[in-house]
């Protein structure tokens, strides 16, 4: 609810008018049976003049109700859509303040679902509340009071009707909720089976498993059908049950009016409006019940959005630190790091010192902690103990802008955004000129294919960058990394999709063009780091070796082991 309350203020007038018009609508519906009763009284009294005035009142009130209904929709839509948009904006801003581990804890996919589906649910909820739910209590209380007022002797019929409707609602809605839960699980399962048959279509076909897959699917499909029919039967029972309760109340009301009329003849005129009020009471209960079931789903979504709002970014930069002129030195001092929910530390007690302009290679088996170590330098994560310093400044005291200007990080999996090539390159350097892009793309060896693109830097990158190959994406990603002339450049296995020739050219260009830049190269292949000033060897989160290639080959058995497996291939 917090997230809703925070957004009520700008929409206060819209909400007021929506509620007001809903109340007018309800009043118009409630008034009509009363007027019907008056007309009948007028008929009984043979009063022509009275019929005329009441008739006109009737039509005017109905028109007012209609206009109120239309206005209510307009205001409800305005408020619901406006609130949804501003909740979405709040959540999006919050997510942009998140650190990477905040995002990973939610998972990117889940955040997207929350920003889309969940907000959609909340938007529908607000719309329903303003359009219909507000009317339910007014109608219920109003119709109840008026019904008792009209024929007080028949109070017990109202009570019995309410009790019966409640019984039907309680006994079916609970059962339905359970079935809906089962249904959702089965629907998920149907999707899962269909999906894995799409991704695994070659496996299914090559193992001739089409018939078995069909059997597997049919079993689930049939179970889903059972649930569908189960829910259908409940509905088939529920709606006629409501109709029957309402109808029987009408019959009873008429019958017992016969007795009442013996002493109170006016009851004859009252019966028509009483019947209408009985119907209104019943529909109010049914609508209320249905909307509450529906809101239960939206409340889940609301909670999921509140989770975003209640999460505090776990990396916060100090606001009062002025911009700093950081050098390219990096220092790890007894750094240990454990991922959330892991019991094993990914990095333990790592210390090393890097001078500006050095090229550092980092090698080790998958899972040794290479990428994690690299991600601590641009402060994607904070270590649990020890300090990481860049340019002599502890990252916990660094100015965010200065850090971003100093460190460029090229990811293992190249991520490009849809838009133009220039748009993506300019993410590395705002307002980068063509000359900047030319320089950077020459270093990354991207110039070769960019020059062949029809519009060069204005060429379009499609969604999921499907119009570029893996190697091209990596080269563009490197271009984005070097375009801002960073003092520290981290290449996290960023050349894995390049062939040996291009990889060599990139390295040469880096050595030549970015002489003063401290470079970290993380690689699976030793050939990628062989020319580094120093190579750090990681094993199971520990720094187990440090030195040049020659030194490590001579006296580090971890390095020797990796080298042997790769060398073996080359010379066998």
């Amino acid at each position, binding site marked *: 609810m917090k997230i809703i309350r925070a957004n009520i203020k700008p929409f206060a007038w819209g909400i007021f008018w929506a509620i007001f018009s809903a109340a007018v609508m309800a009043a118009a519906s409630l008034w009509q049976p009363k*007027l019907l009763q008056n007309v009948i009284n007028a*008929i*009984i009294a*043979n009063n022509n003049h009275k*019929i*005329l005035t009441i008739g006109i009142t*009737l*039509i005017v*009130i109905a028109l007012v*109700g209609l*206009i109120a209904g239309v206005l209510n929709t307009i205001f409800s*839509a305005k408020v619901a*859509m*406006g609130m949804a*948009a501003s909740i979405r904006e709040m959540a*999006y801003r919050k997510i942009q*303040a998140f650190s990477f581990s905040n995002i990973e804890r939610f998972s*990117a996919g889940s955040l*997207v679902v929350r920003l889309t589906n969940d907000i959609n649910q909340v938007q529908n909820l607000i719309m329903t509340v303003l359009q219909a739910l507000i009317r339910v209590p007014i109608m219920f209380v109003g119709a109840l009071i008026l019904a008792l007022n009209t024929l007080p002797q028949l109070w017990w019929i109202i009570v019995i009707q309410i009790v019966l409707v409640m019984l039907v609602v309680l006994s079916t809605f609970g059962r339905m909720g359970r079935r809906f839960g089962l249904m959702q699980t089965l629907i998920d399962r*149907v999707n899962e089976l*269909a999906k894995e048959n799409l*991704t*695994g279509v*070659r496996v*299914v*076909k*090559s193992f*001739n*498993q089409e018939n078995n*897959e*069909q059997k597997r699917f049919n079993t689930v*499909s049939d179970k*889903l059908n059972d649930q569908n029919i189960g829910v*259908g039967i409940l*509905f088939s029972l529920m709606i006629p049950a409501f*109709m*029957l309760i309402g*109808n029987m109340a009408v*019959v009873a009301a*008429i*019958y017992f009016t016969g007795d009442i*009329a013996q002493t109170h003849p006016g*009851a004859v005129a009252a019966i028509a409006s009483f019947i209408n009020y009985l119907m209104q009471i019943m529909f109010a209960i049914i609508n209320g019940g249905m909307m509450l079931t529906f809101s239960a789903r939206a409340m889940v979504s609301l909670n999921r959005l509140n989770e975003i709002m209640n999460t505090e970014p776990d990396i916060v930069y100090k606001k009062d630190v002025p911009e700093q002129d950081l050098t390219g030195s990096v220092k790890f001092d007894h750094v240990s790091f454990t991922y959330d929910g892991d019991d094993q530390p990914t990095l333990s007690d790592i210390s090393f010192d890097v001078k500006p302009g050095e090229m550092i290679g980092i090698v080790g*088996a*998958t899972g040794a902690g290479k990428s994690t170590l690299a991600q601590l330098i641009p402060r*994607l994560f904070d270590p649990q103990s020890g300090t990481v310093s860049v340019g002599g400044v502890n990252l916990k005291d660094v100015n965010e*802008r200065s850090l*971003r200007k100093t460190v460029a*990080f090229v*990811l293992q999996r190249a*991520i490009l955004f849809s838009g133009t090539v220039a748009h993506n390159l300019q*993410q590395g350097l705002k307002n980068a000129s063509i000359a900047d892009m030319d320089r950077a793309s020459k270093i990354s060896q991207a110039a070769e294919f960019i020059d062949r693109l029809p519009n060069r830097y204005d060429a379009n990158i499609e*969604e999921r960058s499907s119009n570029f190959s893996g190697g091209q994406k990596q080269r563009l990603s490197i271009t*984005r990394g070097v375009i801002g002339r960073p003092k520290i450049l981290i290449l996290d296995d960023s050349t*894995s999709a390049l*062939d*040996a020739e291009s990889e060599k050219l990139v390295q040469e260009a880096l050595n030549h063009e970015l002489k003063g830049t401290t470079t970290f190269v993380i690689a699976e292949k030793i050939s990628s780091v062989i020319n580094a000033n120093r190579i750090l060897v990681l094993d199971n989160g520990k720094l187990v070796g440090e030195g040049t290639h020659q030194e490590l080959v001579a006296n580090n058995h971890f390095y020797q082991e*990796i080298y042997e*497996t790769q060398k073996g291939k080359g010379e*066998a």
Partner: protein
Amino acid sequence: MSDVGRSMRFFYHYLKRYKISFTIVIIAIIVSTYFQVKAPIYLGKAVTSLAKYVFGLMHGVSNKGDFVHFVWLLGLFYFIGVLGTFVMNIAITYITGYSTNRMRRGLFGKLQRMTIRFFDSHQDGDILSRFTSDLDNISNALNEALGEIMANIALMIGILIIMFQQNVQMAWVTIASAPIAIILATFLINRTRKYTDIQQDEVGKLNGYINEQIAGQKVNITNGLQQDSIDGFLPHNENVRKATTRAQTYSGMLFPLMQGMSLVNTAIVIFAGSWIAMNSGMSRAAALGLVVVFVQYSQQFYQPITQISTLYSMFQLAVTGARRLNQMFDEPEEIRPEKGAIIPAGSTSAALNDVHFSYDKGREILHGVSIDVEPGKMVALVGPTGSGKTTVMNLLNRFYDVDSGTVSIDNKDVRQVDMTNLRDHVGIVLQDSVLFSGTIAFNIKYGKPDATDEEMIAAAKQANIHDFIMSLDDGYDTKVTDENSVFSTGQKQLLSIARTILTNPSLLILDEATSNVDTVTEARIQKAMDAVVQGRTSFVIAHRLKTILNADKIVVLKDGNVIEQGTHQQLLNEHGFYSELYHNQFVFE
């Protein structure tokens, strides 16, 4: 129009077998409509006789018999009307349930028979949405709209008839405002459709933006682009707000507007009814009855108009859904030769002879490729990406058919071989291994569900994955899905090697995994591959050196042509493309 026609044929196809149920539905509708439209007459009569009885009492006459009689009849009519509705609902539930279940099963069955070409050229998400939203829309429409629309049309006709029977003047009064309501409804429906399209479009754009930005958040953070990301988000968000406000206003207005119209109409009926009753010299009791009855009719008459217009959009979605399912059912299926040749068991020869092939017309991928392998020998395919290595694999297993030339196994053209038999003989291990949801045992026994546990364990041992599986808490009963991360990429490939070993294929196609595998797993995969290749005819799409060294023949593909072939030594001595590739890739000092 043809769209609607085709959709109708689609529905007819699936619904025609429920003739008995439909007969029940129609009888139930007729019964319930009859009793529903008659009930207000008895309500009127009950009120009239109540009035008579009470007026009688005032004059000292007590004749309750008529009154009680009509009250009982009213109760009976209500009851039978409701019973009819109940029977109709139940029948519709069964029709909907079973027919959509058949659509779902049919769609899945169709998927199993379609060509690989279809799957390669369509997005998974698009195909999946036919299982979810399209089938859902059809099911909802059948469930809610089918019965409702039929019942409402019947109700409308029934009420029209009965109203004119009761009182022609009042009948005209009651239906006078209907044309306005219908025009309003049509206008709103058209508007809603137009703005819903715009809304979907804008929502799609916004979702796309959010998806891309959050997936790429690492780039945003490391480049300090958070504010830029927000700046890009705001206009999308604003567009969505505008579009949804419009669309929801129009669609939300339909119901209150129709209800309001119904209210206004009732007011008119009350007013006109009492006026007419007063001025036509009816008895007061009869006048009372007339007004009460037509108030009911006015409400009943507007109910179908409101219902049908709210159900219309649902109906539209179902038509679209049917069209999209039809598209799938119209796709060509794999051509399986009838009474195809059978390949005998044991290792077999295989050959490509002057094969030309293209995925898209006019863009040939293979330009006359010829490769042959003798029984039990191993061929390694090497070459840069896009050279056509994977295409060769696609042809051997008949995932695709050649444009010209022949692919043969055991000297038989694969197009003449019984397809099940062919695929029993050909085993493949894909570069991207796929797991199915289920236990590990289910996945290893996938190609041979009746295998014993001993056979399964033997295969897992050969594939070097047994020890890892045993280290899991539930061993072979561990549940896996393709997405959860019990297995690394490398381990997934080991598992799929075990799966292939178990089926004991006579011709093996291996596509090695390339990246994201550490050296230890790489060595395990190599050992497993050596084990499985032993004594079998095999094609290996090679990315690693070890494989190439052991091959009986290395075929170098480049741009869809075989440019070199021979053993490792022969090719090195030729100092050609292979030799250059070899030195560039693997010698680093």
